[in-house]
């Protein structure tokens, strides 16, 4: 539980940094999407149960919607879909190494941008070709920062990994006959 809360807090902090950078940087499209990267990390890591990861994805998506002034539920829906996609990739593919992470994040970020644009089209006029260009640029920026966010995720996992005490270690032992 503390792991999930820590991920939420880290995601919230990264979202604040992201929204601040969007104000300061001249090219908005070059600001990565750290919350999406956290969601993908949760999907790709085998330590996470599916339903807890999906709830975390919904919460992070909801925070993204709130801070990004997007229709509430849009990023939550996209993130939970991408979480399940990552979970499927984790089960079916060999998901080791930073090269796979970067490529997978690039693909997922572009897919996520495309889905967000589709969802946005429900509430506002379509953005056109420029919107796809922005999605590609943001996907590239997101993929480029994937190793950093995945490193943060692994650190959180290491901090929150519970070391079994002596009694638990005894209960795990299989009696040898």
């Amino acid at each position, binding site marked *: 539980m503390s792991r999930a809360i820590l991920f939420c807090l880290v995601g*919230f902090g990264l979202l*604040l*940094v992201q*929204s*601040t*950078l969007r*104000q*300061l940087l001249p090219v908005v499209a070059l600001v990565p999407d750290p919350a999406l990267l956290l969601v993908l990390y949760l999907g790709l890591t085998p330590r996470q149960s*599916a*339903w807890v990861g*999906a*709830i975390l994805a*919904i919460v992070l*998506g*909801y*925070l993204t919607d*709130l*801070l990004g002034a997007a*229709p*509430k*539920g*849009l990023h*939550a*829906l996209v993130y*939970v*879909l991408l979480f*399940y996609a990552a979970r499927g990739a984790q089960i079916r593919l060999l998901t080791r190494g930073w090269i796979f992470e970067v490529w997978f994040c690039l693909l997922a970020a572009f897919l996520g941008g495309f889905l967000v644009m589709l*969802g946005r089209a*429900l*509430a506002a006029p379509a953005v056109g070709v420029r919107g796809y260009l922005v999605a590609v640029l943001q996907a590239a920026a997101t993929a480029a920062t994937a190793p950093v966010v995945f490193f943060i995720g692994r650190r959180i996992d290491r901090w929150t990994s519970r070391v079994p005490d002596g009694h638990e270690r005894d*209960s*795990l032992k*299989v*009696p040898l006959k």
Partner: protein
Amino acid sequence: MATNSLSAWGGPRAPRRRWRDLFLCLLLVAVPALFLRANLRSPQQLNFIDRGILKVSSPLQSGLTSVIRGAVGLWEGYVSLVHVKRQNDLLRAENARLREDAARARREAAAAARYEELLKLRDDKGAAKVAARVIGADASPHFRVVRVSFAVGTGPSIKKDMPVLALDGLVGRVRRVYGDYGDVQLAVDPTSTFDAVVPRTGTHCLLDGIPGKNRFRCRLEAGAAADEVKVGDLLVTSQHNANMPRAVTIGRVARVEGSRGTVHRDAEVLPAVDFSRLTEVLVVLSLPPPAPPESQPARRPRAPRGLIQ
């Protein structure tokens, strides 16, 4: 015991559990989808949770923005100064160029003013004058001569011993002429001699150059008027010089030697013209005809010509 432990660490999944996972998956996708559908109708509406999160996040965001802006300012102002140095170099070079331009403009303005005064002096009624440009200074301290270039075609009209003037006063006499060039013997040359007068007292004196010094020696006439000469008195050319216009400024008394009442009193005169900075001079070709006696003011010294009074 062993079976329980294995099932706790992910043993074979039961079909019921698969259905449960599928159900949870569909539910967790449907919740945000329904949430989105509900919020698309009124996207601006915020509930108390939204407002609470935004209230918490806004000051954090503001502080973060300040921190990042401060860090960027620190970086740009104190660390990343490479472009500032380059800009500094460019500005320094531009500043030097502008200073040079300004100095040149000042020089040109001064030259224009000088030419204007020379034109006035040349067009002064009475004497015909020709302009000349100084092209070389004296090479030896024993022969105080400058080389000049006369206006094109005026060389033949210039003769030896013609007086040469500058804006500030007397320069000397023409020593020799070759084509449109010539040498001017400066008034401070030891071999040149002029008759001068102190307009304030009417005292006459004979001026000649002091060897090795940029000054004149002035031998004052004996008499009461000579006793009145003091440091700072102006000296001008007198009417006793051959081919020399009257009342041209020569210089000022810098020192008076000898006590009052003696037969000879000498004075040192500082020339009005700075010979080291001569650039343009005027050669007096001919003197004006003498004025009728009645038109001349009686006992009234004429105002000296030249800029220094």
